[in-house]
């Protein structure tokens, strides 16, 4: 009775196949991690957008004229990093606010020394259209009466604008104090 054993080549082949299998499984980790990072980024962007819209609404209701400086078309991205920004309130920064370009930065640490999330906000306006008020169909409202604000958040700030993740938000404000 001759017992056939595995030879070295067979074992080496088996290990090779095992290695390929394990490598393909392990290669899924980075994909999963990237998805998690994206998901965290999405959460940060929507949370900070909420605060940003609250901030703009307060500024607008205090003085409607501040909205006059908001550009009508989508501004051009101009931020490439999160250093040297002017702090406005909370996580909101205004490095180029006059042109509708804001920064959002979520920081941790006692002196905000750790940056958790940094993104660019592009803010622009358009006229509120197609609404029905007081039994009347209105095609378009003037800026003095109402304003539609568009907000695009893109992150991470270090990437080129075209390669960033992006979320867009929309808010209609009505000047009920006039």
């Amino acid at each position, binding site marked *: *009775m*001759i*017992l*056939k*054993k595995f030879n*070295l080549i067979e*074992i*080496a082949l088996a*290990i090779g196949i*095992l*290695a390929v299998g*394990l*490598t393909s499984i*392990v290669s899924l*980790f980075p994909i*999963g*991690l990237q998805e*998690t*990072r994206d*998901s*965290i980024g999405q*959460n940060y962007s929507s*949370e900070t957008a*909420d*605060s*940003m819209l*609250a*901030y703009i*609404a*307060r*500024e607008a*209701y*205090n003085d409607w004229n501040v909205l006059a400086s908001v550009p009508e078309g989508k501004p051009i991205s101009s931020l490439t990093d999160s250093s040297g920004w002017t702090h406005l*309130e*909370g*996580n*909101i920064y205004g490095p180029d606010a006059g042109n509708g370009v804001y920064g959002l930065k*979520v*920081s*941790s*640490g*006692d002196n*905000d*020394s*750790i940056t*958790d999330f940094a993104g660019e906000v592009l803010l622009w306006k358009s006229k509120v259209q197609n609404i029905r008020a007081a039994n009347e169909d209105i095609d378009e409202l003037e800026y003095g009466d109402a304003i539609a604000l568009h907000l695009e958040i893109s992150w991470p700030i270090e990437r080129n604008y075209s390669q960033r993740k992006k979320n867009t938000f929309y808010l209609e404000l009505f000047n009920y104090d006039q």
Partner: protein
Amino acid sequence: MINKIKKCFTLIELIVVMAIFIVLFAIISSFYNTAHKVISSSDEHTMIFENAKIALDLMSRELQCVYYENGKTPFWHWKPDTSPSAWGNYRNELLAFVSVTNFSQNDDCTSKISEIKYQKYYATNHSDSKDGWLRRSVTGNKMSDGSDNPQWNYYNNLIVGYTTDLIAGTDTPVASFTATSDSNESYQKVIPYVTDLTFTCFDKEGNEITPDTTASTDADAGVITEFPYSLEVTLKLMDKNSWRKWIDIGGNVNPQNDTGNIKTFREKHERTFKKTVLIGNRGQYDN
């Protein structure tokens, strides 16, 4: 008799196979270690984010439903310069306001309008089961004896979870109807592992409203602090594992007093969340 010839591995073959296996194992395990660390860190972050979202969503929803009545509804932001010992475990920054809630009406509250209070529990040692908890209490419009409350400022001690068990006094306590998660205190534990909770109130122009800094346990009658137009909530918290490690290495019950490596560890694992809540004009600017 037939000779049985068994072909076995030679020592060299075994050594070569073992060497290949060890190299492969080393490569895979190092990759696995790295991946495991990143996944753990990502899990920690997700847990922190979920806790923060629960707390900030709850607070912002109730703040957006805040109720104002000229001269009657209090809005109290208490931020003492020093922590008066008279406050016992209630020395941290506190926000108290009247809000329209979705609580079911009952004997303690016959309207949907209730008083809400938020505060981080002030522990003196980490063995306290309430250490690191953000707490919330809801108080109805009825006194504990069933009679009506005489005014909106119906708490003489603006303390989260105020009951006669906590503060000795002659005032008839108001009825709290939050879920009682501890044996004799009426409050809800919202989220754990909180290292700091602060508030910044703003008027319509965006100027910061000065909080009440007096070391008094009794609120003044009527409007306590200026009713804000918007406010910012800042919440700092950790994940469960980091919180435990931080305590093990000697984290201070008042985290802002941490120093050296303990502070470095906390700053690395603690995350900060800020939320701006717009309240708007509820009548406070109509006078």
